[in-house]
């Protein structure tokens, strides 16, 4: 699923959070978003997810305009900012709540996702007792469990130990091999370079650079 930003500008109240962004996220590739805090990485992901609509321009996924033709991408998994789940449920039931909406995966698929992110021992623990790293892992599980065509991961390595970071790398590679289009943002440039096929640098809502497989180009 190719994602295109065509002259996208987003203003929230008086702030321009995305300023005339033009970029293409190729199908089946891992695209990295790099930038300092507040540069607009999460906002770009929100635009792709359909959670916010562009003030000007269009976000197009395979020829379909998000916010006009459809409200949300048809097959999307995401983990934006801090994961938010229900405190009174355990990890498994939280994922099942979400999975029940689409109804395309079974309980065993959910268990598999939980095992993939290394939460098998904590799956029956209530979410409010999870550590920050565990919450992060559960967020990743929620993003990948339904094998979506588009995966958005906003700083997935936050709060994770080295094992967790390796887990993220492994999952991202597996999802790419499956053919998913992945957008990932990370402060660790080494991880981003290792995983991404292309990296866009963002500064104050503007796309300022594009790094493709080691080469550099300014926009």
């Amino acid at each position, binding site marked *: 699923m190719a994602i295109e930003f065509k002259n996208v500008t987003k203003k929230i109240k008086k702030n321009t959070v995305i300023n005339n962004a033009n970029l293409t996220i190729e199908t089946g590739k891992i695209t990295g978003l790099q930038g300092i805090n507040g540069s607009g990485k999460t906002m770009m992901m*929100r635009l792709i997810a*359909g959670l916010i609509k562009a003030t000007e321009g269009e976000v197009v996924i395979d020829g379909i305009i998000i916010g006009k033709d459809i*409200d949300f991408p048809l097959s999307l998994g*995401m983990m934006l*900012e801090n994961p938010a*789940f*229900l405190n009174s449920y355990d990890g498994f039931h939280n994922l099942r*709540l*979400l999975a*029940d909406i689409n109804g395309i995966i079974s309980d065993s698929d959910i268990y598999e996702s939980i095992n993939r992110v290394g939460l098998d021992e904590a799956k029956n623990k209530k979410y409010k007792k999870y550590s920050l790293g565990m919450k992060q892992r559960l967020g990743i599980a929620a993003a990948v469990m339904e094998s979506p065509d588009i995966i958005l991961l906003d700083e997935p390595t936050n709060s994770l130990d080295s094992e967790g970071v390796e887990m993220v790398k492994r999952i991202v590679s597996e999802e790419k091999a499956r053919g998913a289009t992945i957008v990932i943002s990370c402060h660790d440039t080494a991880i981003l370079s290792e995983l991404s096929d292309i990296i866009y640098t963002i500064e104050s809502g503007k796309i300022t650079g594009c790094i493709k497989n080691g080469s550099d180009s300014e926009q």
Partner: protein
Amino acid sequence: MKYIKLVKFDLKYGILKRWYTYLLYALLTLFACMDFSFRLKSFDITNFSLGDCLFYFYSGISEYIPKPDEPIQIPYLWLLLNLLVCYFNVHYMSDDLSGLGQYVICRSGKRRNWWLSKCLWNFSSVLTYFLLSILIVLSFCTFNNAEFSFEISENMNLICPTGAQQYPVSQWNIGSIQLLLMPILVCTAISMLQMFVSLFVRPLVSYVVSIVIYFSSMYKLSDLLLGNYAMILRSDEIATNGVSALNGIIFSVCLIFASVICGLLYFQHYNILSRE
């Protein structure tokens, strides 16, 4: 299909999982039944009907004419039965939108599905509160061998403390519409309006709006203040200058539809951001 799943999610998490709020409401109703029972005893009345009990709960207050030496007799029971519902429902939608709801809404496929599901939850929730309340009243009536009719006894205008005395009961033509339908419909309309307003402002502010509507309705007998239609004593079947149930039904239904549709239109362009 997805819409039904969303509705199931909201009914499960918005109603079943919040069973303690319904329990509190049931306890309030039970207490009100006991209060009614004691009041009957103090007037040496042994026979009463279902209509009497419902009248006691939803009578509200007769028209208030401000006088320096007569402050308004606030109908606390009527106020509680309505405002508690609004209190319990005030934050569900906004909590969901800033939490797990973001994941749910993306899976829902359409923004309108999410909003309509919330509207259905709101309506179901209000209905559940009132039905639970009516169930308790029915049980209370059964336990006390009360008459199962909507007829209101002659003595009821004495028992109700908020200005019913001036209206002779024999002239009343009160039925299930005033006793049952109007309180539910009005509360649903105000709860729906509250939910719509919380798209723009904090839920706390939207609750204050609901409070102001109910308090203003207590003070002023007017077709434009929705709370009047939920007060039986303000009905035109009792007070000559009262409000008509038909107007109340039209007003409430229009407000419900307006809240749903305006909310739908506004939500199409709503920025779903994590809110504190």
